[in-house]
């Protein structure tokens, strides 16, 4: 196994304004060396901005950034020991795959042989060797993605930054690339910071998830922490699929402001049900079935149940929560 890099990222009270609008509103965050950290949050919450601040493409309005124990708040992007993979891949269209990967090295005036070796090693690791002399436009989406990753790898960075790198790929390729990225993380042992709005990517790849909401950190924790103990309805609704059922607690008669229960923590039954509703829609996924109930006075309730269940549309169904799995906020 490759040596684990000693490259933590520490953000202290980061703020960022564009004109009069404050987009990042005071972020304190420590990302341990070698960690796979995922920023999630709804569109426009400032994930990309925060990542760009770490990369140095955007400067901070206030606050400091440490990478690998060194204050890099005012350092150039290329002096921060980071590499970035863009959502659009941002490959140089006029350069071959080889020159794309080696561009940074050639700017650093490394000897031609060294560049060649490094580029070929990276290409080998990413199965790009047969494509080295092609131009980006002659590559598929997944291959371009790999070239972009290759360009990051050859710089031998302490920290990798990814901004929604998989969002232009189809579902099957995305699943495959998730695994490849996790493998890469294990192999390189580098710190990785990954922006996505896809909670599946967050859950499956992260060591640590940072949930952002409107420029603030809502919660930080491991995927299972966030799943088991979301601190707010916002986090509760964001992590987990299908989404948690969230209701106005007063209307539901629960004596709290917001009441939440996950679809997988509801049981369909007609004996002493807590709620009764009519079946509006059924999604049979094979391994399990997702049932959409219309509960009078509450609204839609999503229940995840056994794959063999197949309730008739329009039938009346009851549901009960599993003990200890309910969430009450406020």
């Amino acid at each position, binding site marked *: 196994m490759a040596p684990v890099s000693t490259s933590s990222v520490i953000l202290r009270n980061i703020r960022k304004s564009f004109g009069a609008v404050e987009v990042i509103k005071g972020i304190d965050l420590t990302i341990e060396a070698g960690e796979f950290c995922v920023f999630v949050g709804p569109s426009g919450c400032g994930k990309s901005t925060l990542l760009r601040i770490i990369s140095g493409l955007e400067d901070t309005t206030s606050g400091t950034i440490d990478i690998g124990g060194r204050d890099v708040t005012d350092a150039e992007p290329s002096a921060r020991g980071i590499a*970035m993979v863009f959502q*659009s891949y941002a490959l*140089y*269209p006029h350069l071959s795959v080889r020159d794309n990967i080696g561009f940074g090295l050639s700017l650093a005036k490394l000897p031609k042989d060294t560049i060649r070796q490094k580029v070929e090693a990276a290409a080998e690791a990413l199965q790009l060797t047969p494509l080295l002399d092609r131009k980006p436009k002659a590559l598929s989406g997944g291959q371009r993605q790999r070239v972009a990753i290759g360009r990051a790898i050859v710089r031998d960075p302490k920290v990798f930054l990814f901004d929604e790198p998989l969002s232009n790929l189809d579902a099957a390729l995305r699943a495959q690339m998730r695994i490849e990225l996790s493998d890469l993380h294990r192999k390189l042992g580098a710190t990785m910071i990954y922006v996505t709005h896809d909670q599946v990517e967050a859950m499956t790849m992260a060591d640590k998830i940072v949930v952002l909401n409107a420029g603030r950190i809502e919660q930080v924790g491991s995927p299972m922490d966030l799943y088991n103990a979301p601190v707010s309805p916002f986090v509760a609704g964001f992590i987990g699929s299908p989404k948690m059922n969230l209701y106005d607690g007063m209307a539901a008669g629960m004596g709290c402001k917001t009441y939440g229960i996950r679809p997988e923590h509801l049981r369909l039954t007609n004996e002493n049900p807590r709620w009764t509703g009519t079946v509006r829609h059924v999604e049979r996924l094979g391994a399990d079935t997702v049932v959409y109930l219309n509960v009078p006075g509450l609204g839609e309730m999503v229940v995840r149940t056994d794959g063999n269940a197949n309730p008739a549309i329009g039938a009346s169904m009851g549901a009960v929560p599993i003990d200890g799995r309910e969430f009450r906020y406020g």
Partner: protein
Amino acid sequence: MTHRMYAARQRNIGLVALALATLIFILPFLYIFLMAVKTKQEASLFLFNWPAEWQFWTNLVDVVETRNYMLLLAYFNSTVITVGAVTLLVIFGAMVGYVLQRRPSGWNRVIYGCILIGLMVPPAVVPTIWVLQGLGLFKTIYGMIFIQVAYGLAFTVLLYRSFIGTIPRDLDEAAIIDGARPWQIFFRVILPLLKPVTVTLIVVQSVAIFNDFTNPLYYLPGKENVTVQLTLFNFQSQFQSQYNLLFMNILLVTIPPLLVFVFFNRQIVAGMTAGAVKG
């Protein structure tokens, strides 16, 4: 409409277009050529007929040798002016366009204002000559180069600026992360991607500058400064005109731009229609 009728109609339209193009573009050329090979007497009749006597070679040699090989000097001068002006135009135009597009600042408005003035306000000859004289550039090839750059820069900047707008900013940022300095981003990432517009500009501007008649007439007097279009004066005077030689001269002067068009035809069209740079 059946497919076959449709194809036939398309072909007919094509033939008509071709015939029109021939009429408009080829006939004048043919006329020039026929005039150029006639004798002096026959040429003075201005008829569109087959020459009774072919004098191609004699006329050619006459034109080249006139006034101590003035035409060759003119070719040399025009080439120097064209190459110099177009090189400066491309480099400065792309640089200004890049900065304008990528770095919004308070100055952009001012620069835009200057560019629009450059496009719209007609240049005044006499004040320009004063300025040139003040700078010691009047009657010099450099002066002429700067004049051509000044006249072409506004258009060049606008064209580059809008094309650079189609190059994703991510590319600049990827280069920054890769450690590129601003000038490296420009010369190693942006400029190569501008090739389609650059080719178009080179062709359009070279032809315009090479063929320019009025500006050298005003700003570049002097026998040693003659440019190709001005050599046409050699055969036209109040008392005696040698139209066969005049037309031969026209023919010789037209050939270089024509060759440029023929060779770069494809790239020009590509440059005119080029849009976003795909990754």
